[in-house]
Structure formats: C-alpha cells, structure tokens
C-alpha cells in the first residue's frame, strides 16, 4: 500500500516536472519526485541511499537548480508555450520507449529470490568502497575535484554589464517576434539583413553586437567584451 503511495507521488510529480510551463513549478515538482524516489529506496531496504538521496539531491542539487532558476529568471510574458511540434515527436518516442521497456519488464523471467528481511547497509557499503570499489572511489573523488575547479572557472569572470545583458535579451526576444510575424519573408532576406547588421556593428567601432540571422531570431553580443547592442541597433533590426 505504501509502495503505491510513493510510486504515485513520484510519477505524478515527474509528469509535472515535464509538462509545467513555469520552470519554478517544475523545480518544486522535482522536489516531490526526489522524495518519492527516496521513499522507494526505503521500501527496498536501502537506508543509506534513502538518506543520501535526501541530503545530496534535495539538499544540494535541488537548491542549486532553484538558485539557477532564480538567477536566470525570464520574465513571465516571455515564457512561451511549447508547441505541438515538440510534444508530438517526443511523446511518440517516449510512449514507444515505455511500451518496449514494459514488454521487457513483464516478458522477462527474472531469477527472483525471496527478499528476506532488510538489514542495515551503511557499514557494508563503506567496506565495499574501501575494498572492492577502491579504484572507482578514488576516481570519483578526483572527478569531484575536477568538477569543483571547472565550475569555479566557468562562473569566475563577468564580461557583460547587467544593462548589456538586458539589451541582448531584449534584442533576442524581439528578433523572435519578428520571425514569428513575418515568417518566410525574413527567411529570404535573412542573410542580407545579417550582413547589414554586421557592417553596422563593425562601423560602431568593433562593437560586439552582431545580430544573428533572422531565421533563428537571436540577437546577442559576441565575445571580446565590447559594448553590446544599444537600443538603437535593436530598433533598427525591427525595421529591417
């Protein structure tokens, strides 16, 4: 009975993770999914893993995800619905995959043994870490070091000022609106418009505001830390 409760919580909140439009709602649904999986671990007699799941996933990864969501928040008006062109192929593929997996699960004659009473696993896991799995254990510790250094380097320096980020974002979203409105016309004139924009950007003293092609509809600042697109260039894009 308690298994079904945990399973339903896990699967339903996983559905919400996938289908909710607001990324914050998805992150909070992921919280319940991870709790549900921790409950499944507990039912399966994996006490150490259940606690680790709560501590590492919910206390670590989910907090990281929520911080990233907050720091990369896109305004609510710019949150766009994912169209059927994304849901249909993904849904068909996922359903086919589930059908295949379910057929394998039910069709295979698993070499089952009676589970017996669950015992405490922590000491045995620790012994295995230090004996049979000593090489993966050391390798994972090295990997954690590499990940820590990599993350620190990746977020170290800021090349753009906040207002430049705002300008680049505004250009990005206005470009997408142009694409959606004008459709094929921008696709044909897209390359010319790109050249014009890059020339204008070069004339602006090596300014980094190279607009992207209208077909993809992004306008972002490139490297070299130059001044990003000013609002004037953004409005020019809309005219072209």
């Amino acid at each position, binding site marked *: 009975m308690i298994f079904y409760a945990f399973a339903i919580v896990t699967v339903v909140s996983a559905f919400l993770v996938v289908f909710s439009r607001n990324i914050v709602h998805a992150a909070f649904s992921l919280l319940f999914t991870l709790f549900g999986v921790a409950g499944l671990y507990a039912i*399966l007699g994996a006490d150490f893993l259940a606690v680790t799941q709560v501590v590492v996933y919910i206390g670590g990864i989910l907090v990281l995800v929520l911080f990233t969501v907050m720091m990369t928040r896109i305004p609510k008006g710019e949150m766009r619905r994912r169209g059927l062109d994304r849901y249909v192929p993904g849904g068909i593929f996922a359903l086919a995959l589930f059908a295949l997996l379910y057929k394998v699960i039910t069709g295979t004659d698993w070499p089952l043994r009676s589970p017996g009473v669950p015992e405490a696993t922590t000491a045995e896991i620790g012994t295995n870490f230090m004996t049979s799995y000593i090489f993966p254990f050391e390798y994972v510790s090295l990997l954690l070091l590499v990940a820590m250094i990599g993350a620190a380097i990746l977020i170290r320096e800021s090349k753009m000022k906040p207002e430049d980020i705002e300008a680049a974002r505004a250009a990005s979203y206005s470009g997408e609106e142009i694409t959606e409105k004008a459709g094929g016309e921008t696709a044909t004139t897209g390359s010319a418009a790109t050249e014009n924009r890059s020339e204008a950007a070069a004339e602006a003293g090596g300014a980094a505001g190279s607009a992207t092609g209208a077909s993809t509809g992004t306008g972002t600042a490139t490297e070299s830390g130059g001044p990003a697109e000013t609002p004037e260039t953004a409005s020019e894009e809309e005219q072209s």
Partner: protein
Amino acid sequence: MSFGLPHFLTVGAMLFCLGVLAVMTRRNAVGLLMGVELILNAANVNFVAFARYVEHGINGHVIAAFVIVLAAAEAAVALAIVLAMFRNFGTVHVDTVNHLKR
C-alpha cells in the same frame, strides 16, 4: 496489494521515459537538467530494485551511490555552464544559443 520487482521496474521505466520526454521537449537549459536528473533517478531505482530482489548483494547500492555522486558533479558543472550562458547570451533557451551553426 502486493508488489514486487516488476512494479519497481515499471516506476523506473516511467521515470526514464518522462526524463527523455523532458530532454526532448524542454527549451530551458535548467529544464533539460531536470530531465537528466529524472533519468539518473530511474536508473538508480532499477539498481536498488535488482539489488533487493535478484542479486541479494550490496553492489547495486554501491553503484547507486556512485550515480548520485556523478549526478551532483554533473549538476554543479552544468548549472555553472547555464549561468555562463545566461551571462554571455542573455537567455537560457538552448535553441537560441547556436552561434556555431552560422
């Protein structure tokens, strides 16, 4: 209502398919990461279920612990990449960050 190995495997399969669906449909890079977390959790459920019902050992638990550690490292690096992407491009939508395609 009894349950056994197939029930846990079915829950794992559902989680896996939902994770794949999230990776295929989401445009937000953080949403993609959530899909990857779902996939890793599905694999972990399978590991622990097999460890209880088939193998009767501790190996599945050890591997699942390794998977959790890898997920933590992956999340840290990937979220740093997402932050860098947001700083340099002003967006976290993965289909608008395609400078290499042009």
